[in-house]
């Protein structure tokens, strides 16, 4: 009976179907789980303005100051971490009014290195690929497609409130991520 070719074929097909089915049912939940974080906001940073301290330290015609942007709470998958440094901003005073401040993200719009201020030349320099930016943020030389990104700020009761925004890199105009 074991030699009947139809029966053997049926056995083979049945085995493959059954085995394949079991394998699929086994693999699908695992694959689904691994795909879960894609498209999810697994790290949530605050969207509201963050307090960056008093505005008194920003004086007219002084070089920009590097200010660390610290989130009171961020949620990173399962962790709720407090006082997390998100990045830095360059802030300088551009007028006499309390809110006459200019804040630029320290993230280079080219490939995301941290931009420094070159005090001797009076402009910004990205240390990775030598992009230079004027003190007002405009692009000067180097590979960056655009100037330093402006960050939304407001002044409340003499304190600087800044909204942290990440922009896409390598574009000629700033687009929030």
């Amino acid at each position: 009976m074991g030699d009947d070719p139809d029966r053997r074929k049926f056995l083979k097909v049945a085995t493959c179907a059954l085995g394949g089915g079991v394998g699929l049912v086994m693999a699908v939940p695992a694959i689904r789980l691994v795909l879960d974080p894609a498209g999810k906001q697994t790290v949530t940073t605050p969207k509201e303005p963050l307090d960056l301290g008093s505005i008194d330290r920003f004086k007219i015609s002084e070089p920009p100051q590097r200010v660390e942007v610290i989130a009171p709470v961020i949620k990173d998958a399962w962790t709720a971490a407090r006082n997390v440094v998100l990045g830095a901003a360059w802030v300088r005073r551009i007028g006499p009014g309390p809110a006459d401040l200019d804040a630029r993200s320290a993230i280079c719009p080219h490939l995301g290195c941290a931009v420094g201020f070159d005090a001797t030349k009076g402009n910004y320099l990205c240390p990775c690929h030598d992009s230079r930016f004027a003190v007002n943020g405009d692009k000067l030389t180097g590979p960056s497609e655009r100037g330093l990104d402006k960050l939304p700020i407001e002044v409340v009761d003499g304190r600087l409130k800044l909204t942290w925004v990440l922009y896409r890199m390598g574009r000629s105009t700033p687009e929030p991520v």
Partner: protein
Amino acid sequence: MKARLAAFMRERTATSERQPYMIEGGASFAYVFGQVLVFLLLVEAVSGAALAAFYSPSSTDAWASVAYIQDQATWGWLVRGVHHHGASAIVVVAGLHLVQTAVAGAYKRPRELVWWLGVLLLVLMLAWAVTGYVLRWDQAGYWANRVEIGIAAGTPIIGEKIRQLALGGNDYGNLTLTRFYALHVILLPVIVTLVTIAHVVLARRHGTTALRSRPAAPRWPDQSLRDALAMAITFAILLGYVISQHGADLASPADPAASYDARPLWYFRWLYELRELAGSAEQIVAMVVPGIVAGFLVALPLLDKRPERAARRRKLWLGALTGVLAMIGALTVMSFARDSGDAELAKRRVTAEKLTDHARKLARENGVPATGAQDVWSTAPMWKARTIYAQKCMGCHQDPKDRKGPVIGPGHGSRAWIKAFLLDPSGDEFWGRTDLVKNSRLAQQREAEEKARKEKDDKAKQPDDKPGKPDDKADGADGGDAADKPAKPTGPQDLAMPATTLAGADLDAVVELLYAQSGAADVDKPKAERGTKLFEEHCDACHSLAEGVAGASGPGLAGLGSRDHYTSFIGNPKAAIHMTADMSQMPRFDKELSLPDRYEVAQYLVWLRTATQADLDALGPLEPK
């Protein structure tokens, strides 16, 4: 086409066309167990790989990441459940595989090595389960591991070294988890894979021991279909069980300070029961008995040496094996029966389950603090205030027996509460248990006078007259049962406030006025306004409503029930603006508690005003004790 592809592959892989692998005596469901075990190992590998993409082996993050898998990641509970219960399935099927092999006499010469490798695999599986159970870093896994390592540490001479190596140092911590994780996902998988390959290759070389005198059948597809069917059935049962249980359990975070009714995984329950029965000899039993069982399994092919395979002619050794398995089974049943008959344990488990649900809910809603999962409790609403309250305030204000001050509970400071207070300030719920009512100076004075009078009377009338019953006034002075009548004799309670004589709409108006002091949003302003006049007539003699002004003989009531008022009161209840030293036993807390801490407690008291007992219960337990 198929033949050409096969030829192509043979040439590329430098293999020759082989004769199909034949099974002596034909295909049988008796042979499926080995294949099912390999399949289950694959299930563990696939689910384990997915879990490893989420798990974080650190003492601060481990529990949090497992809770994330269980409660937040899509199908995480399913994959984790398959992984957890899949290990149980391996133990069950391995047991069946062992019994089937023994009954068939398949461990006999020349297949001893195959059997021994199988026994080794069984031991490795159990060790694998142990290394996995601790990774969740919850109360269950943590305490089970402490016991297991405790047993291992009892090994003579090298015990302490084993413990230190397992824990990665002197105590449980990050290195414990990284070690067990490395064992669980790298070392043991590699070792088990190698041993399994050796086991399978040797088994194939020897072939199966023919069960019947039927013609041989090719493995593919005759046996393969039976294998696939068995895998499908096994997986269907596993999946069904996982779904019915919503995956695997996860208790609250590991806490070395909180007691927990730790139980080992079910396949170690027989050893757990054995230790219970062994009493003081538990250490020896826990080490020796598993050794004897493993030794018996290893020795079986050497003891049962005759080539005879028929089960009915090997009654002695099969009987011995049955005895060992029956003992393990009976002990397992006894262990579970002991637990299910323990009412106290059941109560503790209900409490533990509540804590678990609370911790998981907090982790899901608030995230776990970066300081570690044991701090997840602190993310509960008003946790800090409630903790301070439980430590510093509850004894005097809530404890039914030892309470010394007024009750503070849901509705404290509400209109109903203010009204009840005004009607009976010396009631048991209010000042009744305070020295203010119990030992007011006038009350003491009266008591002393009474005593003196009695002594005088006794001297005059002695010896026939018994000490007289204290009259009504003396009873009132005693103040012991101040709660029984709303209208109290006001005389003896010189410092304590007398019950109000106001009633009806007048009383409600004064209540509204006092309620308005809290700054509550729902104040009836005209009503409170009416109360002002009544206050001047009835209350102003002792109290004041002016900001920062104490009353003539009672506390200033401006801001009563507001956060600032509570903060100030908690800081120093004996201040002139509040109760003064004469009227308050409550200690001042302005040294013990920082201003922000007092603010938090005050905020909690404000919250209590509108809270119900259900609201309070909904805040959940503070943390395990």
